[in-house]
């Protein structure tokens, strides 16, 4: 067990990283530094130097949390982390989902902003609570277990929104877009954040009024209608309806207690726009 400390120190001699220990076990390793311009701490290493660091990392088999985002790894070899629950390998130019992940009890997996074309079927077996696969080239998403609470599949190559999302009863965050989509075919009851961008959606769905929603990002759709009782969304702080087809907002809109509002690029009349400006121009962020 003492070897985890030795391995961690050996990694620290090669690069900046942070770790967390429980007794002598290294349970968390983080190769990012938000203070640095490019975030990833081994991003500008040569492939040989990266492999030397990752080889040492592979010896830390007690890891439960691993952050490798924005390191431009291009390839992730074979590892055995039987306790790994949290993994961020976003922005690494990876072209596949590493197979060894199926042997991890992953609850949080961020594969965003890579070049992945295919997701493995075993993904449906993981006890995931968070799955981020946005900005890849994925054409098919296997059914994900309904343990999921956060799901972002924005900007991929899928033809339509998968039906299984309506079975994800625990979802608190849902993000998708740049896909053929006109209307919701089911409801969500626990959503706190919704991001639906670049679709043909014409109405903001009524079910949102029954959700504890805090943020809605619904830019670049075809939205003409908002729920008549949208003002009942007392927790809503952040609303973007940038670039839609809104001519007017319902009267209850002015009951909202927003911090950020974007209504730019909607065909509102000058009088309707003035009504909105009068009510919201002093909030933290406002565009119309």
């Amino acid at each position, binding site marked *: 067990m003492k070897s985890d400390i030795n391995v961690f120190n050996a990694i620290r001699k090669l690069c900046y990283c942070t770790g967390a220990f429980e007794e002598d076990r290294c349970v968390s390793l983080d190769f990012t530094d938000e203070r640095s311009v490019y975030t990833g701490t081994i991003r500008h290493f040569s492939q040989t130097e990266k492999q030397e660091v990752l080889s040492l990392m592979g010896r830390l088999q007690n890891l439960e949390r691993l952050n490798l985002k*924005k390191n431009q790894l291009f390839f992730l070899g074979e590892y055995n982390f039987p306790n790994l629950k949290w993994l961020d390998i976003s922005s690494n130019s990876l072209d596949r989902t590493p197979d060894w992940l199926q042997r991890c009890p992953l609850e949080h997996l961020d594969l965003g*902003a890579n070049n992945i074309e295919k997701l493995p079927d075993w993904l449906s077996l993981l006890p995931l609570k968070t799955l981020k696969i946005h900005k890849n080239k994925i054409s098919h998403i296997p059914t994900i277990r309904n343990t999921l609470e956060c799901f972002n599949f924005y900007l991929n190559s899928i033809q339509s929104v998968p039906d299984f999302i309506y079975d994800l009863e625990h979802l608190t965050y849902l993000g998708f877009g740049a896909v053929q989509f006109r209307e919701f075919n089911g409801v969500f009851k626990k959503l706190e954040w919704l*991001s639906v961008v670049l679709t043909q959606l014409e109405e903001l769905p009524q079910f949102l009024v029954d959700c504890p929603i805090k943020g809605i*990002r619904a830019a670049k759709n075809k939205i003409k209608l908002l729920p008549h009782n949208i003002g009942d969304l007392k927790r809503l702080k952040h609303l973007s309806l940038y670039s839609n087809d809104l001519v007017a907002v319902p009267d209850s809109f002015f009951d909202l207690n927003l911090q950020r509002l974007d209504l730019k690029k909607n065909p509102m009349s000058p009088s309707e726009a003035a009504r909105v400006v009068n009510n919201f121009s002093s909030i933290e*962020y406002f565009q119309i």
Partner: protein
Amino acid sequence: MVILTCQKWFNSYAVASSIGIPVCDIEFPIDWSQDTYLIVVPTRGNEEIPGEMEFFLNNLVVESKKYLICELGNCFGCDESFGSAKIVSRVLESKNWSMAGPIFSLDTVPSIDWNELNLWIQNEVRHQCV
């Protein structure tokens, strides 16, 4: 003023070419005789810059110039920035470059917002060129 961009970035190069100022490709030798440089750069992935720009910045030795940034990206509304300008700006400031005007974030998805671009050219770029 000279524009710095890369021909490989289709939208950025189209935007740069439309401004009416000489354009330099960052993958080729740059005319460093100017006081002010306008950088036209897209945002990639999760608030990242293209590899060509990262390479250019990592190898930049010229100091103490003025700069403007036109960053391209996908506007979601309520955006303060798309991401690439923050990175470029931090690197340039570390080399004692100074910002000559506010960052301009140009929406290019699903198509380039030429109206916003023309407004910015009129209000900011032309002013810098006088």
